[in-house]
């Protein structure tokens, strides 16, 4: 079946794909491009597990159509590490044990990356509000908040 031809940028690479009009960006990332970092938790924009950055805005990729990505710039969790070198946030999530089952983690990492890009020195309250669109059923959030606080300190010093 023919589809809509889309040309976009994902993690700095020019990517072209065909998708159906009702296919979400999340479906395209996972099922067509093999970028399975973004997860489908709810599929309705409530849980944030599918978070990606679209033209510098944090969005739920389940609430974006694949066709809408034409000419835009997408950042996913796959673009955070450089080779074996983890992003500071990823390193701090490990050090603080800010994950258990891991389903929500890519979404939290991307949301935290967006948060720190816009607010490099957030208060705890700003972190909690900033990450309120990401749900985690394991950690109770405290470890995630600590990891982001610690990452912010390191990233400011860098």
């Amino acid at each position, binding site marked *: 079946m023919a589809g*809509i031809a889309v040309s976009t940028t994902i993690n700095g690479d020019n990517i072209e794909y065909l998708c*159906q*009009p*009702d296919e*979400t960006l999340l479906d395209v990332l996972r099922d067509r491009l093999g970028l399975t970092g973004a997860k489908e938790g709810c*599929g*309705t*924009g409530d849980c*944030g597990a599918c*978070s990606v950055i*679209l033209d510098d*805005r*944090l*969005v*739920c990729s*389940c*609430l*974006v*159509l694949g*066709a*809408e990505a*034409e000419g835009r710039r997408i950042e996913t969790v796959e673009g955070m590490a450089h080779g074996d070198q983890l992003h500071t946030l990823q390193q701090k999530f490990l050090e603080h044990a800010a994950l258990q089952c891991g389903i929500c983690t890519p979404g939290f990492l991307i*949301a935290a990356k*967006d*948060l720190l890009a816009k607010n490099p020195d957030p208060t705890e309250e700003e972190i909690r*509000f*900033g*990450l*309120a*669109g*990401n749900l985690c059923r394991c950690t109770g959030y405290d470890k995630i908040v600590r990891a982001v606080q610690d990452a912010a300190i390191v990233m400011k010093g860098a």
Partner: protein
Amino acid sequence: MRYIRPLSIEDAVGQLAGSAGISAILAGGSDLLVRMKGGFVEPDLIVDIKSIAGLSDIRETADGFSIGAAVPCAVLGENAALKKSWPGVVEAAKLIGSKQVQGRCTITGNLCNASPAADSVPALVAAGAKAVIAGPSGKRTIAVEAVPTAPGKTSLAKGEIIEAILLDKRSPRSGDAYLRFIPRTEMDIAVVSAGVNLTIDEHGVVTAARVALGAAAPTVLLVEEAAEALIGRKLDEAALERLAKVCAGACRPIDDKRGTIEFRRKVAGVLARRAATTAYARAGGK
């Protein structure tokens, strides 16, 4: 299903007007994609309006502000001039959803989704906002409260698109505010809500006011009697008391697990009172 991304409003209107079956306008998609996912709607045509020139801009004009239909709520919050003139509208828009949803959702979409609990709508109604509608027979401008007609229903005809929301230039000594009640601290839908917009004279006497309630009836209510309770007075205890009473009386809420009729009536009054107090302080009243 077809997906199109027209570059002009005329083309978008033409495509919508000429389409058979179910068509849907896509801006942020935070309602549409959820309804598609849930199987509540299966559009034959999706018209993405984000590439139409001007629809993603906030323009400051001689008459006030024109907010394009595709402007995400996050962008409203980043516009210092808009925030200064209409803090109540911006605070209401900023309450919708998470950071992720804020990056996509629009006040025009919030209006057209026609939920009685839509957060930005009472604030827009209180602000006296207008909707500019493009359609097959040209453009028309109507008050925002004339857009929703029932839960999920609007007065827009086939082929019509709201292209912008207009907010007036601010008179001196004016302020607006919006408050909602939710059982959580955020990320929830209003159980009941109130928007108040007022202007005072140099003595602190209210000269103009608009009061709107959300989640209190099938559509957002503009409560004219509540405005009358404020106009011609300072915001003293008697005026606030009367405001709360009138608002409670104007509600025609549903009774559900999120709030009883009695609770919604009472809280509508309390929120109107508090929103009026904030709006009054923002207008410079003491």
